[in-house]
């Protein structure tokens, strides 16, 4: 596999991302309003039960923003299918593996770059107690972003329908985000329905959110070992990036994109 070609695929996705100015601005406004409006108000409401809910929520919203921007690559896939750019990419002197891996990394990297400034603000709000923990947390966010990007590409090429993808992503978003610890601790999920907490234990968003809170010192202890968390996110990244290549190669052929 050529690193130069891999980088060129990544570079292309980064360049394209910058062009989506409207989306980027809107996501920024969404993030700000979630933190400055919803976060502050809900914090007042629930602070008796969770004393530092605002910080808990800010970390969760950061992960949700990372998740949603990494998912955006799937829309690029449909845009490309619609304009036939897919076929063009497949005729280039780039191997399928370089193409998929490059796109998966590109999709993750651009979402990471996007939340970079937001992350700085968040870290300013939250403060950093242990730089090593933070490093582990940021590394796990990388794995998470690449994994989400790979998942988005895999779903897009399996669905082959922009409308269905849009609907599925909406449902998936509701399920994945709600069945995770991004917005509320496991304890309250356990109290509501134990099944919710059980499912949340297999959710990559849970690992990403909890590791991030642990890395930034919001949560002193983790329900799982940090190593287990990193391994879980690595498995998530590996599955959708490398196994996704197989799907990608098999499903590309024959058109029928809607």
């Amino acid at each position, binding site marked *: 596999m050529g690193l130069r070609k891999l980088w060129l695929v990544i570079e292309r996705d980064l360049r394209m991302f910058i062009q989506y100015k409207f989306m980027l601005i809107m996501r920024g406004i969404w993030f700000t309003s979630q933190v400055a409006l919803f976060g502050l108000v809900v914090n007042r409401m629930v602070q008796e039960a969770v004393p530092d809910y605002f910080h808990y929520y800010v970390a969760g919203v950061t992960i949700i923003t990372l998740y949603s921007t990494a998912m955006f690559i799937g829309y690029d896939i449909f845009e490309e299918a619609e304009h036939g750019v897919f076929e063009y990419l497949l005729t*280039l002197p780039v191997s399928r593996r370089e193409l998929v891996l490059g796109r998966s990394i590109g999709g993750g990297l651009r979402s990471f770059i996007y939340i970079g400034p937001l992350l700085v603000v968040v870290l300013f709000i939250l403060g950093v107690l242990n730089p090593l923990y933070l490093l582990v947390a940021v590394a796990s966010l990388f794995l998470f972003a690449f994994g989400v990007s790979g998942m988005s590409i895999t779903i897009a090429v399996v669905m082959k329908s922009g409308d269905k993808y849009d609907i599925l992503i909406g449902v998936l978003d509701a399920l994945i985000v709600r069945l995770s610890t991004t917005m509320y601790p496991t304890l309250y999920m356990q109290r509501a329905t134990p099944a919710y907490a059980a499912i949340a234990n297999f959710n990559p968003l849970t690992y990403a959110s909890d590791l991030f809170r642990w890395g930034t010192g919001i949560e002193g202890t983790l329900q799982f070992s940090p190593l287990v968390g990193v391994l879980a996110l690595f498995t998530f990244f590996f599955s959708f990036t490398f196994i996704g290549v197989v799907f990608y190669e098999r499903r*590309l052929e024959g058109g029928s994109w809607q």
Partner: protein
Amino acid sequence: MNLWVLYCAIRLRANFLPNFAFLQSGVNVSNPPIIQTSNLTKKFGKLSAVDHLNLAIEEGEIFGLLGPNGAGKTTTILMLTTVIRPTEGTATIAGFDIKKSPNKAREMIGVCFQEPKLLWVSTAWDVLNWHAKVCGLSTQERKRRVKWALEETNIWDDRRKSVHALSGGTKKRVEIAKILVQRPKIAIVDEPTAQIDVVGKHRIWNMLRDLRAEGSTIILATNELQEADILSDRVAIMHKGKLLVVDTPKKLKDSIPGGDIMEVHLEKEAPDKVLDELQAFKEVVSVKKMVSNTLRLNLNQVEAVTPRIMKLFYDQSLRISTIYMSEPSLDDVFAHFTGLTLEEAQKE
């Protein structure tokens, strides 16, 4: 009279001179074909989009792939470029099997698609610059070629505009500029002049000739017969996924019995004896007496037989007042092999 015959003969030679362009332009017929397909087949369900295609394309030639929409041209291109896998058979691109070594095969190829493959957010400059990078050009060479291709295709002034702001013709020129930047060993151009105005067409034809002169082999997929006739060294005609015939445009046209038509208006009526003598030439398929001392001859190899016909009229003291000649077009060739005009085949 003598001068007139000589004039006619010279005009005929000029019009019907065999096309030796592919010999002058470096087509290497002694080397193995640069593209070879063996029973290349693609089925979509029960439909055979391409049916056991066997082709050999020589290095350095402009090879026309002709046929109506749905003939299988684009599917063939997509298989050769490894975008889709053949259901059966295979092909080699510069010695690389498209199934076994698709990555190597793709390194040899540059494609200009029928519909420009561009994302609306990109600019023409972005598209070409990234394409040049992926094709492995050095920074200096890339900058030089991108600038040159943008100027050559007349889109330099629009290079920073988003693709969605460009007209259909300009988008198509961006698509063509990709292969100009790349200068691939094998350039595949699918309907290169669709949506392009007449002046632009001639520019693009010249660009393709220049590309070939620089060493590229060109596969020209088109349903524009005139374009195929003007540019191609050889033409393959496809219909319903099958290859009907492959040869030089000249030989294909000559293959139609009596396809060349000569209408000679004489100053007096030709006696029957002259008609018999004309009919005796092996190249003369039929001779018909029309109104007003006009003879209509259906011929093969018009350039070979015309001097003898002129001599016969001269010997018989038959003065020619006007002469009209036409050669068959590739449309006639298509009709000859399919029984349909290209338009009818398109509808079918």
